[in-house]
């Protein structure tokens, strides 16, 4: 084998000082297999080396948190003996290079993270971001990603019940595919990635190992894109949802018994990360004989075997003496299952190949003592320049009706049924609130409970003000969950940013993390899992900072779920929250005037908390019929959605005081919810708003065939409905 030089290390994405540290750890130069192992484990994607110092700021504990960050997924207690495991992960780089397989394997990967904890995945969300609609690649990427998610999720039978899709030119060169999944587990049946018990057998199960995905995490996910990125297509893995379905069922059957001590999926960095992380958590070592690993093709080297990211594989540490029981279950499901090694007490990852030791590395140095960087950060110059909006300098439109129609037909606001009808969102028959309301709600069979979830991030806000944008992402997802009747409990996040080696990107990251941390502390919704995706840049142009937040909430009685649309004529429409006339950062300014300027809306997290508590109390007392958060497009769009998204189309007549009409109608001030109720409950609702010191504004009544707002808006709701529901189809039909 040829000498490993610094050049080879650099080709592996390692830095000079990292290569020197490897030599220091080993007391010698690494061989190629060892270098490969270090390079993937110390990649940004696996080691969080640039983000770790900031992620420590997140609150991660609460009485209901069973498992916080550091495992394959976070877990919270939902009561009645059950817990839910959830996590969100990015598959951005692979999806840009190969949208169908990139997105499909993103789904596969997150599902394995969930069921490796012993939980059956019961719901997924997808948060997707594409370039401008008119960009030549956007339709290709959109169709590829959506069908990749659909084919994988539908086949394996986990409903995709919600998510978000945005288009913005900042994603022209880097799309975002963030996939969230949630699983249900009995509290006393949780499994961990833990290689305990010296002498216990290490069992490889699932698909055979092939040459796909080698260096997916180190070279693809941990570097910027340029014009040569197409050449990286071979680093994208290929998904097989059928095998994953077998693996899921076999693992869940295995979890019914007491045969194993630990299990972990082979995701990024494959066999390397699963073995190293399990041994790292247990403080043990692992020996593996690579000649025993099931291979897809002959002649694979130990380097390729250890770095392959072939999908649908898991590593299990069984209890000694129960090997045969484990193997029998996988045989029933026609899956490969092979004992490839055992747990040792020497603290080393030791690999044998062709009868010889081919790698020997101390586990704790690869897992816990990966390099940590406190990278320099600096407030970028652009921040001052983009935060000087003179609201009154923005002219008022001639026709507010036309503006509302344009906004409802804007792909960032329009209904997404073209997407969600391609996803099986009903399988497992738990979906109580289907896609198209503020948050999706599932029931938990055999209990009274419901679980609501919503993923949110306004990246334009984050670009203009990363810290407040981070706070708003948390508050909006909490509000969405509350608007379905659920109490927000915990978040997972997927932090998508540019190149962390640039101080201004690091500043965006630090600020966003601090914003999320502060909001989570006040709302008492800890961060229990998550993922960081850096290097979302192409030819030096970064995406907007996009810290996607997925909030999970609990309904103690799922029958108390609420939806966004008006239910009956002659109900009273009320705005709870402050009607500020803020225009900064709005979809209106961006879409109609092409102005990207702040200041973005104010957010008072304590107010948000009171608002959520007030709303939940109103709902628990059966006082309200609908609740809808006001977000992109402002009050006018939110009112239109209340009118047109239900089974019955119901108009509305609204009167309110306005100073600057465009800001009142289309501004995106935070902490506002539109509710509808029977007139007879109005006083009780007002009492609750007063009790929580929340603003309360009677807007008008439901009914009629038009949406009327003052003398500004007057449009037939059938027309609004057609615009809102056909925008996506029309866009895709356009050549």
């Amino acid at each position, binding site marked *: 084998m040829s000498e490993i030089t610094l050049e080879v290390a650099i080709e592996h994405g390692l830095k000079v000082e990292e290569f020197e540290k490897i030599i220091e750890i080993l007391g010698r130069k690494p061989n190629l297999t060892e270098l490969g192992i270090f390079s993937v484990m110390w990649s940004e994607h696996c080691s969080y080396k640039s983000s770790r110092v900031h992620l420590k700021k997140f609150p991660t504990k609460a009485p209901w948190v069973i498992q916080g960050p550091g495992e394959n997924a976070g877990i919270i207690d939902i009561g009645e003996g059950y817990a839910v495991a959830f996590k969100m992960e990015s598959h951005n780089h692979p999806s840009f290079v190969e949208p169908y397989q990139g997105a499909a394997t993103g789904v596969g990967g997150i599902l394995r993270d969930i069921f490796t904890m012993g939980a059956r995945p019961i719901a997924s969300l997808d948060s997707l971001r594409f370039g401008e609609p008119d960009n030549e690649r956007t339709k290709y990427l959109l169709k590829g990603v959506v069908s990749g998610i659909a084919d994988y999720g*539908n086949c394996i039978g986990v409903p995709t019940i919600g998510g978000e899709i945005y288009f913005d030119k900042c994603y022209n060169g880097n799309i975002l595919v963030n996939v969230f999944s949630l699983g249900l587990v009995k509290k006393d049946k949780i499994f961990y990635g833990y290689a305990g018990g010296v002498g216990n057998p290490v069992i490889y199960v699932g698909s055979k190992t092939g040459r796909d995905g080698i260096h997916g995490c180190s070279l693809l996910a941990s570097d910027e894109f340029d014009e040569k990125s197409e050449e990286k297509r071979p680093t994208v893995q290929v998904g097989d*949802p059928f095998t994953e379905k077998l693996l899921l069922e076999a693992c869940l059957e295995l979890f019914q018994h007491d045969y194993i001590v630990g299990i972990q999926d082979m995701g990024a960095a494959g066999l390397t990360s699963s073995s190293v992380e399990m041994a790292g958590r247990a403080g043990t070592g692992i020996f593996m004989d690579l000649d025993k690993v099931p291979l897809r093709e002959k002649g694979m080297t130990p380097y390729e075997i250890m770095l392959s990211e072939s999908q649908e594989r898991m590593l299990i540490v069984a209890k000694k003496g129960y090997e045969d029981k484990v193997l029998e279950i996988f045989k029933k499901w026609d899956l490969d299952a092979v004992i490839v090694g055992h747990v040792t007490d020497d603290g080393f990852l030791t690999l044998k190949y062709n009868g010889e030791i081919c790698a020997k590395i101390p586990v704790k140095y690869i897992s816990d003592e990966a390099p940590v960087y406190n990278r320099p950060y600096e407030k970028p110059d652009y921040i001052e320049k983009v935060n000087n909006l003179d609201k009154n300098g923005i002219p008022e439109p001639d026709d507010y009706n036309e503006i509302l129609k344009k906004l409802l037909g804007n792909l960032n606001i329009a209904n997404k049924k073209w997407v969600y*009808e391609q996803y099986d969102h009903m399988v497992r028959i738990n979906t109580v609130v289907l896609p198209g309301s503020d948050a999706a709600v599932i029931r938990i069979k055999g209990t009274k409970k419901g679980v609501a979830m919503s993923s949110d991030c306004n990246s334009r806000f984050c670009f203009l003000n990363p810290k407040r944008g981070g706070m708003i992402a948390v508050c909006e997802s909490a509000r969405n969950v509350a608007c379905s009747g659920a109490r927000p409990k915990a978040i997972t996040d997927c932090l998508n940013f540019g190149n962390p080696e640039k101080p201004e990107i690091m500043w965006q990251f630090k600020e966003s993390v601090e914003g999320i941390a502060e909001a989570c502390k006040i709302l008492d919704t800890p961060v229990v899992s998550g993922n960081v995706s850096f290097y979302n840049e192409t030819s030096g142009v970064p995406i907007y900072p996009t810290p996607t937040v997925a909030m999970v909430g609990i309904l103690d009685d799922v029958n108390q779920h609420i939806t966004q649309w008006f239910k009956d004529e002659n109900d009273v429409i009320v705005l709870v929250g402050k009607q500020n006339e803020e225009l900064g950062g709005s979809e209106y300014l961006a879409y109609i005037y092409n102005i990207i300027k702040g200041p973005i809306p104010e957010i008072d997290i304590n107010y948000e908390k009171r608002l959520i508590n007030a709303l939940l109390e109103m709902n628990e007392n059966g006082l309200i019929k609908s609740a809808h958060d006001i977000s992109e497009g402002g009050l006018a769009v939110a009112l239109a959605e209340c009118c047109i998204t239900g089974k019955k189309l119901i108009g509305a007549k609204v009167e309110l005081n306005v100073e600057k009409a465009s800001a009142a109608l289309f501004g995106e001030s935070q902490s506002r919810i539109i509710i509808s109720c029977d007139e007879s409950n109005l006083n009780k609702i007002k009492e609750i708003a007063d009790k929580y010191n929340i603003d309360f504004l009677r807007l008008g009544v439901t009914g009629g065939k038009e949406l009327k707002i003052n003398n500004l808006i007057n449009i037939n709701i059938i027309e609004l409905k057609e615009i809102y529901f056909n925008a996506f189809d029309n866009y895709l039909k356009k050549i």
Partner: protein
Amino acid sequence: MKFGVVRFPGSNCDDDCYHVAKNVLGIETDYLWHKDTKPLSEYSCIIIPGGFSYGDYLRPGAIAKFSPIISSIKEFADKGGLIIGICNGFQILLESGLLEGVLIRNKNLNFICKDVYIKVENKNTPFSKTEKNILKIPIAHKEGCFYCDESLLNKLKSNNQIVFRYCDENGDITEKVNPNGSLYSIAGICNEKGNVLGMMPHPERCSEKILGNEDGRQIFQSIIDYLS
């Protein structure tokens, strides 16, 4: 009365059908593993659930028909036992020859998951003595476009084997409300004897109040009434 829900590798509506049969309708129900070869004589009705048997990589149902349990199912059908195949179950029944016709890719080439309306064309089968004539039931499939040649279509019509057809909420059958391009808007058919039914819509997905729709339950109730 005892129901059996068949599990192929890749079935994914097996738990849903089991839940509705056992927990919602209160019928004793077993899972049946596809490798089982025992006779099915102890069962009154076999449900072949939806999903992606063997990943549907070749053609939906094309591999499942070789599973050992299929011969027991055929024997069960010959003896007059009730069999309902839903979605992938319908596809498997066609591939195994228990029903005639084919299901091809939806007209728009995409997977479609949404509520549709179906009209009960033949109320004289064990599966379709429903209270309502028009049922709202969701579909969720990519290969649900029913197709056959003219002679088979004529035969299906003259034997009253067409059980469900896609329609609008008023029962009008038009191409506009035919979600997948099925010939003659066919959503479900039975065999000549009427004891084997295949349908693309999922009645198990709308059999409980909490899910906002209980129309699907009428199909299961019809089976139970027939067997009682």
